[in-house]
């Protein structure tokens, strides 16, 4: 690898693109980017890391003309550059794969290529055969590409990303920007594609800006690693032997007090290796869905276990699979019962998913008491009358115990988000025992007071026959609630932290680790 780099020595070539004091302010006073200086050379791959909201995507948008910069200059090939629009960026040779893919779902993969790339003018006759020829040529660069004739809407996110990359490459850009462009691929595919990128770049013509969450990826593919935090460039280093994961993670999280996780505090995830004092009440064996797993883990009675990982890490799918809401392979044992693969059966045994996605979870046109009754409906035979009195009684209990501000006859949509969330959690907790609560980003978008209240309620109800699993992207929530955390990345559990070992930087560090990293360790 190092031979490769010395051979083409990109550092000596003239800069292709320079950013000088680039600043982006969103009114009234939010600095998305603050005086960022960055140089990209042909033949070089620069990787860009940073937490959510650090300014990575803003930078990409400025370079492609989707956003305008507030102050500072861009220089392209030694000349001042004004990127007026995405079309202009495309003309000068900047290609991008956005995080939110802008592809047309009702067209085939090959048609997307041509229509996103109509350089011959809108009136030029469209030829499906020509589109497919171009598609075939560039799809060779991507591992396991979708067929050109397949309709885009039938493809999963990972395959759409492949189409988007093929489209970007087909424009023969001089600068290629990948904004989380391969985040849904599996490890082998990512590694294969990273090799392709290195080969393309090191031929000397192409510069690549690779934006990612994963430190391992960043170091593997990049010639240089740059870290943004709160819009400022806080770290830049060549990827040589001296580069340090820990420095990067500190640069990303901004915590100076953090200590390096050592072997003794960091427990590698070994299923069933753990000797627990109490018997597990939930046992998950080889749970697998399309993009997740196989997962093996256990939860003891009275325990609150956290799932930590970035969106798309597979934790949500794992929770939905345990609740029986999506089809899965493998076995879920709960309270000595092997659960059937159907949500109604699982709910009857007290397994319930509580989502922070409230429009998905509640019927906002219904009064509170009917929403409380909703998960209780199918505890009985479907041809019995609706137990309205029981609903009213339970709703009363929920409102009292959990301090919901609103009456039981109030339309749920009229309540604030935090109160709606209390109703969701409250009605789950009133379901009966045994109870397994699966919290899917439970406190999304609610204020701190309501959030603490929900945490308090959940901790209060943990008991002999209650277990809780919560997925959260927020380290502080995990630290607050959980005694044990499984860290997810790319659909797998990569590590486990216990008790005092759960710290923000360890969570951050481990969630950014690639699957291969910990498996090899």
């Amino acid at each position, binding site marked *: 690898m190092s031979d490769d780099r010395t051979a083409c020595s990109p550092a000596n070539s003239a800069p292709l693109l320079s950013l000088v004091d680039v600043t982006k302010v969103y009114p009234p006073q939010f600095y998305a980017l603050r005086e960022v200086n960055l140089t990209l050379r042909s033949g070089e791959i620069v990787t860009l890391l940073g937490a959510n909201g650090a300014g990575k995507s803003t930078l990409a948008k400025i370079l492609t003309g989707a956003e305008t910069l507030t102050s500072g200059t861009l220089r392209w090939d030694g000349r001042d550059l004004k990127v007026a629009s995405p079309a202009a960026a495309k003309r000068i040779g900047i290609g991008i794969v956005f995080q939110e893919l802008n592809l047309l779902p009702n067209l085939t993969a090959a048609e997307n290529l041509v229509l996103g790339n109509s350089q011959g003018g809108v009136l030029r006759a469209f030829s499906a055969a020509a589109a497919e020829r171009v598609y075939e040529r560039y799809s060779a660069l991507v591992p396991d590409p979708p067929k050109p004739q397949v309709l885009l809407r039938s493809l999963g996110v990972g395959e759409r990303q492949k189409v988007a990359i093929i489209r970007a490459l087909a424009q023969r850009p001089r600068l290629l920007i990948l904004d989380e462009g391969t985040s849904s691929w599996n490890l082998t595919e990512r590694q294969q594609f990273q090799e392709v990128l290195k080969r393309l770049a090191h031929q000397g013509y192409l510069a690549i800006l690779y934006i990612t969450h994963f430190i391992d990826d960043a170091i593997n593919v990049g010639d240089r690693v740059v870290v943004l935090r709160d819009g400022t460039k806080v770290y830049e280093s060549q990827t040589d032997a001296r580069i340090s994961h820990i420095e990067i993670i500190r640069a990303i999280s901004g915590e100076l007090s953090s200590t390096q996780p050592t072997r003794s505090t960091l427990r590698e995830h070994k299923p069933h290796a753990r000797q627990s004092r109490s018997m597990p009440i939930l046992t998950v064996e080889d749970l697998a869905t399309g993009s997740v797993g196989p997962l093996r883990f256990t939860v003891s009675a009275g325990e609150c276990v956290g799932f930590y990982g970035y969106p798309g890490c597979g934790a949500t799918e794992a929770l939905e699979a345990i*609740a029986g*809401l999506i089809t899965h392979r493998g076995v879920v044992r709960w309270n000595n019962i092997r659960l059937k693969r*159907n*949500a*109604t059966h*699982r*709910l*009857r045994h007290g397994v*319930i*998913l509580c*989502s922070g996605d409230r*429009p*998905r*979870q*509640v*019927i*906002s*046109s*219904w009064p509170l008491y009917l929403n409380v009754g*909703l*998960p209780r*409906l*199918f505890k*009985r*035979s*479907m*041809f*019995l*009358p*609706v137990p309205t009195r029981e609903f*009213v009684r339970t*709703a*009363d209990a*929920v*409102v*009292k115990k959990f*301090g*919901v*501000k*609103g*009456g*039981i*006859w*109030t*339309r749920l949509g*009229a309540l*604030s988000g935090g109160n709606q969330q209390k109703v969701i959690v409250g009605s789950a907790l009133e379901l009966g025992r045994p109870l397994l609560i699966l919290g899917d980003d439970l406190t999304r978008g609610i204020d701190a*007071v309501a959030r603490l*209240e929900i945490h308090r309620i959940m901790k209060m109800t943990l008991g002999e026959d209650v277990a809780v699993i919560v997925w959260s992207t927020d380290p502080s929530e995990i630290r607050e609630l959980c005694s044990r955390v499984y860290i997810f990345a790319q659909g797998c559990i990569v590590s486990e932290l216990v008790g005092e070992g759960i710290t923000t930087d360890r969570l951050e560090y481990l969630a950014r680790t690639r699957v291969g990293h910990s498996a090899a360790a």
Partner: protein
Amino acid sequence: MVEQRNLDRVREYLGRHGQKLAVPSVLLLFVVYMGISSPVFLQGSNLINIASTISPITIVAMGMALLLISGNFDLSVGGVGALGVVAGSLIINHAGTFVGILALLFMGVLCGTINGFIVTIVGVNSLVATLGTGYIWSGLAYVLAGSSPVTLSTNDLPNAITYAPGGIQVSVLISLAVIAIAFWYSRTIAGHSLYAVGANREAARLAGVPVTLVSFVPFILTGLFAAIASIVTIAFIGGGVPETGTDWPLQAIAAAVVGGISITGGEGSIFAAVVGMALIGVVQNGLVLLGINSNLQTVVLGIVIILAVAADVRFRRRFSDAALRRVRETRPTEVVETRGQPGRITHAGDADAAVPATEKTAEHARDCN
């Protein structure tokens, strides 16, 4: 004080149920107007006559109401009706009345099951799926009938259906029975989950409602009810013509929607569909009694349908606005409580259940101040 409280209760009742009163009021107005302008109208025999005339559509409308609540349609009820009257008459002529009725009921369940399968399991949009199956059933009716109507060879069925114990015809009793079945079903857990599926399918799924099963059953019921309606129709016309039922689906949907069942699902009631059906029946009958040109009657019926639904929409908007205003008025309470005593949580739930919680919170706010 007590009077004020009672007034509050009435206001709250109107707030919660007032939005449902629009169409019954229109029906009541029309009945009063007809009672004044035509002496015959309010006589028992005329009212029973109305009920009997609309009984096939009423039966169909009950199934349609359940389906609409769950967010689906069935346009094939007309096809089931056409096939039902033709095939039913043929079977009755060849194998007897009893076998014919059983075969018809079986056919209805079968047609409904096919619809349910295509919509809930294969996943075709219900409007399209039942449009297609409707063409198939009515096409089969034309094939079976050839070019001429089928005439019943025995009068057993017409005699039975038009038999009137205590002045009330069997056809009316059948439609009342179907209304009762639909009403009962809507009050069961399965029926209640129709509303959940219609209002928020995903929320229902997350709450463990077996969404596929729950949306499948109304298709079967609708098929069965359409078959029952075709039995009544055979008796009325003494045989079967393949043109039967062309206006069933839209009339049934009109009745349900006029009654206040949401076309997008999740709202409405069986009672509402019955009221809607009664309005249509009363208007049709009234126009005949008033001696209005029969071509013009259809025009007037259309106008009445639009007026009723428009009144319903306006009522709803008004009452939901009022409800929203009350909620807003209670908002400041929350702020006062959280700022003043962060540790203490007050709640409205300990109010006696009959008193609206929003009002109660407002009272609480007054106490605090």
